[in-house]
Structures are given as C-alpha cells and as structure tokens.
C-alpha cells in the first residue's frame, strides 16, 4: 500500500534545524500533515494523545533518546504498529543492529538526501 499523502507524521528531533529540514523534505514529497516533538518523551506523549501514522525520529536526544522511544512504542499495544524511521548520525553497525532489534522500520544516516528519504518511505509503505 503506497504512503497516504494525508497521513499524520511526527518528526522527533532535539535540533530545530533538523526538524525543519525533515518537515520541509516531507512537504516537498507530498506529506504536509506533520507535527514535531523535541525529544522521545514529548514524542511519546504526542503519540499517545493523537492519531499518528508515521514517526521520523533522531537517535541522540536529551530526556529520552530515539531508541528508548522506539522501544516504548513497540511495547505499547496502541502504538506498536506505527512505522518508525530513524534519521541519525549514529552510523555504527552496532547502532543499526540495536535499532533493528528494537523494531525500527528503516534507518537513514545523516547527512542524507531527499531521494534517500523518499526511497525509505517508499519501502516502508510499499
């Protein structure tokens, strides 16, 4: 099933510049229904309070990291089926393995291109 252009996407990153970049790319790719959170904890709160269809998250964040948020999402009955795309500078193999074990839907290494984002979204929602 291709990605729904109206799906609600949550962008989680502690850096305002990265949130804007990801939201801008998503908008250019046709996904304008986006919201944002500054860390995993805020992200989880928003996810529990709203009907989101997709999460794009950073790894390194204060308060609650992206990987901790991912584990919490997968452990939550209501949220566990939401696809989570990690966009991170953590480019070690061990990080990728950790993310996969935690149930990540796909993984983008910074710096990245819009094409990469499009390709990953396409793979998640194919």
């Amino acid at each position, binding site marked *: 099933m291709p990605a729904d252009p109206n799906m609600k996407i949550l962008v989680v990153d502690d*850096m305002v510049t990265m949130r804007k970049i990801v939201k801008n790319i998503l908008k250019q790719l046709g996904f304008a229904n986006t919201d944002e959170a500054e860390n995993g904890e805020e992200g989880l709160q928003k996810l529990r309070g709203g009907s989101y269809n997709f999460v794009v998250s950073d790894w390194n964040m204060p308060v609650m990291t992206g990987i901790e948020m991912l584990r919490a999402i997968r452990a939550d009955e209501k949220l566990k089926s939401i696809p989570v795309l990690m966009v991170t500078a953590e480019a070690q193999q061990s990080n990728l393995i950790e993310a996969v074990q935690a149930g990540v839907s796909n993984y983008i290494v910074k710096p990245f291109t819009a094409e990469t984002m499009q390709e990953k979204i396409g793979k998640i929602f194919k």
Partner: protein
Amino acid sequence: METQGRRLYEELGTLARFVDNAMHAISTVTPQIMSSSTQLPTAASHLSDLKKMTEDGTLEVMRLTELLQDHHASMAKELSGVVDALKAIDCATLAGRLEHVRSILAQDDKHLMEIMTALSFQDLVAQRVKKLVAILDEVQTKLVELVVVFGLQRNGHEAVGTGIADQMLKQLEESKTTAMKQQVADDLLAQFGFK
C-alpha cells in the same frame, strides 16, 4: 646487616630525591595548569556560541529557501492555468514556451530542496560541538582535581597565561562585546561621508 641498612638508606634517599624532583616539576607547571583550568569554561562558552551562530545562520537560510519554495509553488500554479488557457485557444507555441518555464521552475525546486538538505551540516556540527564541550568540562574537572590534590594555589598574576592560545581566547572573549553590528558600522561610515 649493616650493608643492608646502608642500601636501604640509599634507596630511601633516591626515592626522596625523585619525589622532590616530581614536586618541583609540578610546581613549575602550576601557572599553566591554573591558567588552563580557568580558561576552559571560556573555550567551552565559545564553542557553544559557535553552535548558536551556525544555528541562527542555518535557520535564516531555511526561512529564505522556504519563501522561494512557496513562491515557486504559486508560480507553477499560475503557469498551469495560463498553459491550459493558451491550449484552449490553440496557442501551442506560447503554451510550449510556458511549459518550458515550468520545467525550469521544477528543476529549481529540486535545487532548493537540495539546499535545505545540505543545511543538515548544522546538526552534525552541533553534535560535535556538544561532545567537545563535554570533553572540556571533563578536562577542567581533572585539572581542578590536580590543583586540589597537589595543593596548587593561584598566585596572583602568575596564573594568567601569555601563550598563543591564551591570546586567541582573550581576543575571542573581547570580540563578544566589541564586535560591530552593521548598523553601527554604517553610522560610523556615514560620519566619514559615506552615503
């Protein structure tokens, strides 16, 4: 027995000299240690400023890029309407030329998105700066521990360094308050007759 006592006495003498030399060596670097431990917070502060400056610059480029993207979207919409109208009245040549303009706009849109994506450098810079600040904090803590353990005391002006690093840090610190804003520069230029 007497020989053993003499050897022990010699060993203790060697050890005492070693300790004395070590203490002397540490005391000679005291000013540098004191200077470094007092300047590290300043260096960390400059790194944090660097992070803020790149963030501000990046956000401004983003703001302008988004403005251009919005304008492009409006132009593309307008052009589509004009192309459709021209096709309806059978002006194929004009419609073709406008289609060409529209494709150029689409290419520019791609470039604008590449500019936005390229700005992610700021995030990578910020992450490295954060790590450097953490390292400086750690080094400062260790230096302070050293100062406490060896009882090194600040000795008036001796703690003030005179090396290149000290001078550069001093310049950076001064530039925080003395760096001129464009408006001030323009006012000054105006006073010198520049219009």
